[in-house]
């Protein structure tokens, strides 16, 4: 779970159970026995042979189960590294091969040591029958493991989103600078100081709200505009923002606190570093049932960029987009040349608004 909190390292999340654990082994033995009982119930021909047939079937099934478990215990770390789909496909192949080997061995042993209750067919027929049963059981097991791994994954994602939402809170840098601006304005321009305090309060209120919720585009843009007003007091003519968002339906839903943090990034990593400032552009376009919002800012040329904080803000918004939209939404970054551009693309959802 610790590794799963690291956004760059999502692949380390376990898809497969820990086959080396005693509890897993116990469950596998239990399931193997249940399957053996099921098979025996389905096939036995006379009452008195039931227990003998069961013991032989159990013996056979347990061999497959235990050998498979031992192999999986050795291979898990390797399979996990291959990614989810491959991990499942490769486990399936490994377990099928295990089954084939055990069935073949059983056949050969029977041939050497005499007849058996459960092996009556011809060689190929026996192998095929065993493989078919094994495939069905494996397919069910894989499906179960897949669902439970997806379920764990969604829990992890949700937890990450909550953490991200906390991280999305306003930078202390901004807060203290704003306070300093207000302290200065209280003497020179009390009216603007008053407005600044009101704006700052609204912004803090928006930040303290439940940030895992979605809000309307209208609210998001308002929060960003308030943020811009406060920064404008501090940066003066150096800060210009061009809003080109008329094409966006204002009722559309969007994860809350996405636009304001991106505007904050644009100012902190762009405008503030430029002696003459510059223009941030926020552009919204609608493309069928998808919306795209692009935020672009100039950056100083030729300076080594310290993108530490930037990366955190970006991975944070990525995570919340992934949770909200899965593969239907995307966050793209273009930092070529002298501008830094972030594009958010997400499906239009006009949901019932309370307004």
């Amino acid at each position, binding site marked *: 779970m610790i590794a799963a909190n690291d956004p760059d390292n999502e692949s380390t999340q376990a898809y497969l159970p820990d086959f080396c654990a005693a509890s897993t082994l116990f469950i596998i033995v239990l399931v193997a026995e249940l399957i053996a009982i099921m098979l025996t119930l389905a096939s036995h021909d006379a009452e008195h042979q039931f227990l003998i047939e069961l013991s032989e079937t159990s013996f056979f099934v347990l061999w497959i189960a235990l050998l498979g478990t031992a192999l999986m215990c050795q291979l898990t770390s390797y399979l996990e590294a291959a990614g989810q789909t491959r991990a499942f496909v490769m486990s399936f192949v490994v377990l099928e091969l295990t089954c084939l080997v055990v069935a073949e061995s059983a056949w050969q042993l029977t041939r050497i040591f005499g007849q058996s209750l459960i092996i009556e067919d011809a060689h190929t027929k026996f192998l095929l029958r065993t493989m078919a049963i094994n495939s069905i059981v494996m397919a069910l097991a894989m499906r179960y493991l897949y669902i439970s791994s997806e379920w764990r994954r969604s829990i992890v994602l949700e937890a990450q989103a909550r953490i991200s939402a906390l991280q999305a809170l306003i*930078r202390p*840098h901004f807060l203290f600078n704003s*306070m*300093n601006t207000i*302290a200065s304005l209280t003497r020179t321009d009390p009216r603007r100081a008053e407005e600044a305090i009101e704006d700052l309060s609204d912004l803090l209120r928006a930040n303290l709200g439940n940030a895992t919720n979605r809000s309307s585009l209208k609210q998001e843009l308002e929060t960003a505009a308030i943020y811009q007003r406060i920064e404008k007091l501090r*940066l003066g003519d150096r800060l210009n923002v061009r809003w080109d968002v008329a094409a966006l339906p204002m009722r559309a839903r969007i994860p809350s606190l996405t636009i304001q943090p991106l505007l904050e990034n644009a100012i902190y990593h762009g405008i503030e570093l430029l002696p003459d400032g510059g223009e941030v552009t926020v552009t919204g376009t609608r493309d069928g049932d998808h919306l795209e919002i692009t935020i672009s800012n100039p950056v100083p040329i*030729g300076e080594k960029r310290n993108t530490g904080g930037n990366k955190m803000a970006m991975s944070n918004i990525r995570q919340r987009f992934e949770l909200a939209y899965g593969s239907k939404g995307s966050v793209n970054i273009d930092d070529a040349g002298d501008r830094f551009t972030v594009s958010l693309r997400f499906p239009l959802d006009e949901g019932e608004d309370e307004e």
Partner: protein
Amino acid sequence: MKVLVVDDEQPARARLRQLLDDEESYEYVGEAGNGKDAVLLSAELRPDIVLLDIRMPGLDGIETAHHLNMQDNPPAIVFTTAYDEYAIDAFDARAIGYVLKPVRRAKLTAALEQASRLAPSTLISVASQANMSVARKHVCSRSQTELKLIPVTEISCFRADQKYVTVYHDSGQDLIDDSLRALVDEFSDDFVRIHRSALVAVARIDRIEKTDDGKSRVVLRDKSQVDDEELIISRRHLAEVRRRLKGV
């Protein structure tokens, strides 16, 4: 005590001025909105103390402090910052005076009272701890009448005479006070030493050519600036120059 206020944000400067105006023993003498103006204004107004914002576009606070230090009788420096945990740790570790924004009157006067001059080595260690660039982005040249900041990106060559170092840059040449030795250390990323007394910008080197008497010479992209005689590579430095040119 004369105090110069340096901050890129107007309200922040206004705030410091308000606080200084209330104090009898400190006199606000002026303000600058960027590091370059600060250096020029400091040379002109000769403040005792400079209140210096760390995070500024262009010349940041630490680099500005470097240049202020190079003046005769340099001013003491008190840094100001809203929030910069690495820089604050660095200041605390070296007992460097700073005030946090929003600036509190009592903290400001205490910092002004304790303000002291900062050694260049202190500034370098602060810069590296605060994740800021250690090398300056400008060098500073002074004559009796004027003070000039030359962007390092415009410099093709530093050459040392007996006493001074000459900087060859896009708009001419100037004398600076830095020692070549210190420049070698500071700008080793972008400059290479070609002989005992010359340091050349790697990006400005076009190629190496052989002279008639079998020596090697650096050819600059912009040939006009430096005497050919000065660009002979000493045998000791030839391998290093070749290596740097290959970008290894």
